[in-house]
């Protein structure tokens, strides 16, 4: 296992490309000489002594918490993030190597509250094996799903029929930066307690610096949202993650069925009724939805339902390298804030 990790990190794979370049340009003897040197290096890298390679001290499940944890830990320890950018926190799965990394970690940081279904088993196995774990969501006073607010996160669900979720905690706490600031402290304290060899003062200083950044984000969001008239603070959406943001900044989440691509090919009034009713009742000029054809949706709403509405997409559950604007947690929150203000604000 140790050898394997070292190999992947860099021994032979790096050697292959180096060798190919060299071989083309040099004589046989020279090549062999160079190869022997490289081989020596690769053997050393491969850790044939049996224990080579730094163990990943902190393993984080989601990429949002990964960004936060990296800021807290800084250079004090290795941080491995399991969920790749643009993946889905509910269902991403991990490789055998990563499962092994979890079991050798000093600390596993995860969202919890039922979010990471794909790796929960691995996290629990590690916990049973004595690895320290931190379910961040459990420590930030989670809110619970309700059924009685006019089709909130539940009603908005395209695939759900309702209601086994009522009363269960909502795992998407990161849409509230105030809670994320608390998460920073929770992570810092556990890192100090569980990860050998870290400089506690340095970790706490990192955390304080980053918490200040998040508090500034919170204040900035509050100021930006003030540009939206209170009567328009309605998020008509098919997303299920904005319950926390809504609670923090005084928005109402209005669930709606967003007509699908097949429906939009040849829509009728009944296809658009749920959304048109929601938009009219909410009195908003924009909706926040993922749609495969946002422009077509807007056209159809105007033509068939007489509702002029912009269709705006938001970042929800994952940092992104595929789309710009969400390479870090703070950047993602800023992008969403500007998108909401742009959609709902005046002028």
């Amino acid at each position: 296992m140790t050898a394997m990790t070292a190999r992947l990190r860099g021994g032979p794979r790096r050697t292959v490309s180096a060798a190919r370049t060299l071989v083309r340009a040099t004589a046989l003897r020279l090549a062999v000489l160079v190869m022997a040197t490289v081989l020596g290096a690769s053997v050393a890298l491969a850790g044939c002594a049996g224990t080579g390679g730094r163990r990943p001290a902190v393993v984080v499940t989601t990429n949002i918490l990964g960004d936060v944890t990296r800021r807290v830990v800084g250079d004090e320890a290795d941080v491995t993030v399991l969920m790749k950018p643009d993946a889905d926190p509910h269902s991403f799965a991990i490789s055998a190597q990563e499962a092994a990394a979890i079991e050798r970690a000093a600390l596993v940081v995860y969202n919890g509250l039922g979010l990471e279904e794909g790796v929960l088993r691995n996290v629990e196995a590690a916990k049973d094996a004595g690895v320290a774990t931190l379910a961040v969501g459990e420590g930030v006073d989670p809110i619970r799903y309700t059924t009685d607010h006019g089709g909130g996160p539940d009603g908005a669900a395209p695939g759900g029929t309702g209601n086994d979720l009522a009363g269960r905690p909502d795992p998407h706490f990161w849409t509230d930066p105030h809670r994320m600031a608390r998460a920073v402290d929770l992570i810092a304290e556990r890192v100090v307690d569980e990860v050998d060899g870290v400089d506690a003062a340095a970790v706490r200083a990192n955390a304080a610096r980053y918490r200040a950044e998040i508090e500034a984000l919170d204040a900035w969001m509050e100021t930006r949202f003030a540009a939206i008239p209170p009567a328009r603070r309605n998020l008509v959406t098919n997303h299920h993650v904005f319950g926390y943001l809504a609670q923090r900044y005084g928005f109402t989440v209005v669930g709606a069925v967003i007509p699908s691509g097949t429906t939009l090919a040849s829509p009728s009034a009944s296809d658009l009724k749920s959304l048109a009713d929601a938009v009219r009742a909410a009195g908003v000029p924009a909706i926040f939805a993922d749609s495969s054809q946002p422009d077509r949706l807007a056209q159809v709403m105007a033509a068939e339902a007489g509702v002029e509405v912009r269709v705006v997409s938001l970042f929800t559950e994952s940092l992104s390298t595929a789309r710009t604007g969400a390479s870090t947690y703070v950047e993602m929150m800023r992008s969403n804030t500007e998108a909401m203000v742009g959609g709902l604000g005046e002028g």
Partner: protein
Amino acid sequence: MTRNPAARAALAVLSAATLLAGCARTGTDETGHEVAARKPAALPHGYVEGAEELAEPHPRLVIADGGTGTAHLLDLVSGDLTAVGAAGGGGVIGGVGGDGRFAYLSTRNGTATRVIDGGTWTVDHGDHSHSYRGEARDVGALTGADPQRVLGDVGVTVVSFSDGTAKVLDRAALEKGDLVETALIDTGGHGTVVPYGEHLLVAGDGPAGKDTGGVDVRTRDGRPADRIGTPCPEPHGAALTRRGAVIGCADGALLVTVKGGEFTGEKIRYPGKPPKGDRALEFHHRPGSTTLAARAGDAGIWVLDVAARKWRLLKTGPAVAVTATGDDAPVLSLTADGVLHAYDTASGDETATTELLAAPLPRSGAAPVPAIQADRSRAYVSDPAGKAVHEIDYNDDLRRARTFELGFPPAAMVETGR
């Protein structure tokens, strides 16, 4: 590159280096091999490698060409039609069913089931769902004569055959493109096997022809785990709903639910005593709907409201194909005259009709039979004589939203990705 002797020598040295790098293997051989076979760890490996997450479900129809036996994929968003899979004797002719992502079609020679990956699928997370797109492909053929029914959950898909056997396929392997049979179940006759609650429900005569009273609960690899005592005489047909698994029995439907690992059976008896020929044999519904529809012999349509534990017989006369579209949505029925009908499930009233098919169905049994499939907003009806598929807005008086001209008679049609 390898024509260069220096390169050859260097590569030889490299192989040695690779071998040496494994010298301190503290893990197992198994892990070592896995690493060798994998792509580098730096590549993203989300839920399924190479899959792209979509903003919404992306439904497709897998359709068999009744002439050539070629399977086609009709993309319901773009309208594109593409061929996928083999033609000829190994080609496809009949529809068996689907498990959300894969369509199962019986082959023309009747000895196998061809499995087509529709390439789009939706994962339900209760409060929301995620949809993906990968590559559509012909996964291969599963041997076994006369396939009857397909039912799948997240772990396995079960294909049942007319001789009472059922093959259990590993879903994770299917997603990688491999047909891996994890169990072969013999119900001893006209039995029914249903994947449910991370187990298999096996209703039938049993391998020894005894103990016909209840339903066996087995592990996914076929080992006995539990038993449900409620009898289900002459089991035939089954469906999976959010409120439990439903198995058709001579005297009604057996609803099986699981709570905390405990399986419970509850009989929903037919009202009165319907003649034997009128019992429900196969259930049809939009996936997720807890209202089911079944043909009731020549009498009409059975509607089973699973939530209310109640049957209703719609005395419509014989139907060619039926399906339920949802809990507060109509039951659809196609009659031999080519007319599609909508019925209100609460009152039993006919609410709309539309003349749909190009021609009435021929009386001889050789011609392909039309199929109905439904998703959350539309239903699709295949029209062999018209060489087309009709898209129906069932919430708008059976309005014909689109008609897809295929250029061949559709012999089978299974919706995936919904």
